[in-house]
């Protein structure tokens, strides 16, 4: 391994002019990682002629203390400590000369905990993704994973409610929760909208949900929606004897307006509200604090994330968003379905789910998890699987996603040929019969379709549902899959 070329301190280091980042102290291959360091791993595509170590040092420099030139004012500070240190660079397998892709590198960077303000995703991200993605020295850059030290995690509230308490409040255990998004997304009046909510909840779903872009438009203002939906929720609750909910989307132009809408949802007795990722990190943290204070479950729709998380060479991995959102304090986040209409490689999605649900995550390169993460007793965040899934895939969903997930069957409920209640009955029956079979020790991966057909003999709505969606699947190749050096060990 290359030796550090840092000119440590003194006159030489601080002569006016421009010297490589590598020599300014941002490349330290022999750096000893501290338990309290924030670690980040970037996938870099350096510009032609920029050597990978210099590129990594530039990323470390620009995401911590550096500017493009030497400044003497560094010498007034404990600058050695504040400098981020790039400590490791690996060539990404199947990139570089002889392959179809230009050379990419995994660069590991350590940041001292004192660089960050506690309880502020905004401050953390202003450093880590603030400037570096536009730097000329990198052609493309992607934040793949982060290790957040326990000491820093402890400054965050974490999920307002968490999976365990959500289940206790809802009295629903031992199975995934079921939900659906009201469709069509736009255009229904409050009265018509509430009809869909009532039918689906009475039929057997646990939750209904606003879509990300349902806020307060001319066809349905928010108060109307809240009032009709709560009538639907309570009526369905009385019809079934179960606790039910509708995610009231309180997303609005200002935090003040969101709080006002959330307060109204609370007055009406809603157990859950919803926000969109596009409201911004600080707004999300504010809403999470409000939610904890007001016994409210907080659902987050990841609206907008694919603009920066989907491409493999630039942006950031969704697992990092998962990490930040668990810290920021949301209770639900959309995290992929594997089998539905939206992007997702099975192992990568499992990595997102683990990130949201584990109390301790070991390094698992095949899932794209590059760092060990102790979650420091932060609550668990419930993953939500939504988009193009239906009852016929129940055995696959249960195998891939496990019990702690909200399965959202929007079209798969509302599009049922015998009506919305029948659609909900089909989904709930398929779920219960699959949980029962799995618990009995049956091989649901292989026997799943047979188990569903057996149940369809006594459950007519399930029979009709299976028939309607029997040929629906979304088999496209994933744009994002894990790359890793097989010899890499858990020492990082």
């Amino acid at each position, binding site marked *: 391994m290359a030796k550090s070329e840092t000119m440590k301190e003194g006159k030489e280091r601080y002569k006016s002019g421009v010297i490589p980042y590598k020599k300014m102290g941002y490349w330290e291959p022999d750096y000893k990682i501290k338990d309290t360091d924030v670690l980040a791993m970037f996938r870099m595509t350096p510009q032609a002629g920029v050597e990978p170590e210099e590129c990594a040092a530039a990323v470390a420099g620009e995401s911590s203390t550096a500017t493009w030139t030497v400044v003497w004012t560094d010498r007034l500070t404990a600058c050695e400590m504040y400098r981020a240190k790039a400590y490791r660079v690996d060539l990404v397998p199947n990139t570089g000369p002889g392959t179809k892709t230009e050379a990419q590198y995994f660069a590991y960077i350590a940041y001292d905990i004192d660089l960050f303000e506690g309880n502020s995703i905004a401050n953390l991200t202003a450093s880590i993704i603030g400037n570096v993605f536009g730097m000329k020295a990198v052609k493309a850059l992607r934040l793949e994973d982060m290790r957040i030290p326990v000491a820093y995690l402890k400054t965050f509230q974490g999920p307002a409610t968490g999976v365990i308490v959500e289940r206790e409040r809802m009295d629903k255990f031992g199975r995934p929760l079921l939900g659906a998004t009201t469709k069509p997304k736009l255009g229904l009046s409050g009265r018509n909208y509430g009809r869909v909510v009532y039918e689906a909840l009475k039929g057997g779903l646990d939750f209904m949900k606003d879509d990300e872009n349902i806020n307060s438009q001319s066809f349905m203002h928010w108060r109307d929606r809240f009032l009709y939906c709560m009538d639907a929720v309570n009526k369905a609750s009385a019809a079934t004897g179960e606790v039910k909910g509708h995610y009231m989307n309180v997303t609005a132009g200002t935090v003040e307006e969101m709080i006002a809408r959330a307060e109204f949802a609370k007055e009406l007795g809603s157990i859950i509200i919803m926000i969109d990722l596009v409201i911004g990190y600080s707004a999300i943290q504010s809403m999470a604090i409000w939610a904890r204070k007001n016994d409210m479950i907080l659902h987050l729709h990841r609206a907008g994330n694919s603009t920066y998380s989907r491409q493999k060479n630039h942006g950031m991995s969704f697992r990092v968003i998962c990490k930040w959102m668990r810290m920021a304090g949301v209770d639900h986040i959309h995290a992929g379905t594997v089998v539905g209409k939206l992007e997702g490689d099975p192992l990568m999605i499992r990595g997102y789910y683990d990130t949201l649900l584990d109390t301790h995550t070991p390094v698992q390169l095949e899932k794209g998890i590059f760092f060990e993460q102790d979650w420091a007793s932060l609550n668990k965040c419930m993953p939500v699987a939504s988009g193009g899934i239906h009852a016929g895939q129940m055995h696959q969903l249960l195998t891939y996603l496990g019990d702690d997930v909200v399965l959202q069957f929007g079209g798969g409920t509302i599009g049922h040929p015998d009506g919305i209640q029948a659609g909900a009955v089909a989904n709930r029956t398929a779920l219960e019969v699959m949980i029962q079979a799995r618990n009995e*020790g049956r091989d649901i991966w292989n026997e799943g379709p047979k188990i569903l057909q057996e149940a369809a003999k006594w459950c007519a709505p399930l029979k009709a549902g299976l028939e309607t969606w029997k040929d629906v699947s979304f088999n496209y190749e994933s744009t994002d899959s894990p790359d890793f050096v097989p010899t890499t060990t858990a020492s990082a």
Partner: protein
Amino acid sequence: MMTNLGNRVTQGQFSFLPDLTDAQITAQIKYALSKGWASSVEYTDDPHPRNTYWEMFGNPMFDLKDPAGILMEVNNCRKTFPNHYIRVIAFSSVRGVESVTMSYIVNRPKKEPGFGLVRQEGEGRMIRYTIHSYATDKPEGERY
């Protein structure tokens, strides 16, 4: 009578399935044991969705590892309260969970009266909702 598809309270993991047989209950008990979870039997005559604390038919069976023994407790409870709601609960004591991990109904009254929804009109269009358990119109012990 309840008007949902099964005309029944749908709490728990398996209320959309035909009533569980003893063999099926035993399979679920075995699953809980295989995970290291303690099972417990609870009963009530008020299945209100927010009636969290059903009566305990004895403590959770932390030390009983024999599924037949646990099923015997289920059946003792059914014999004692043939017309009550009875559920089996499983608990995990693992850090990060420390809560209920399974809950399924194994007995119910012959006739399930269900719930009424009471709407109290408030200011403007505000409504306060109360879910009323019809069973509780009668005193405890005389409900089914």
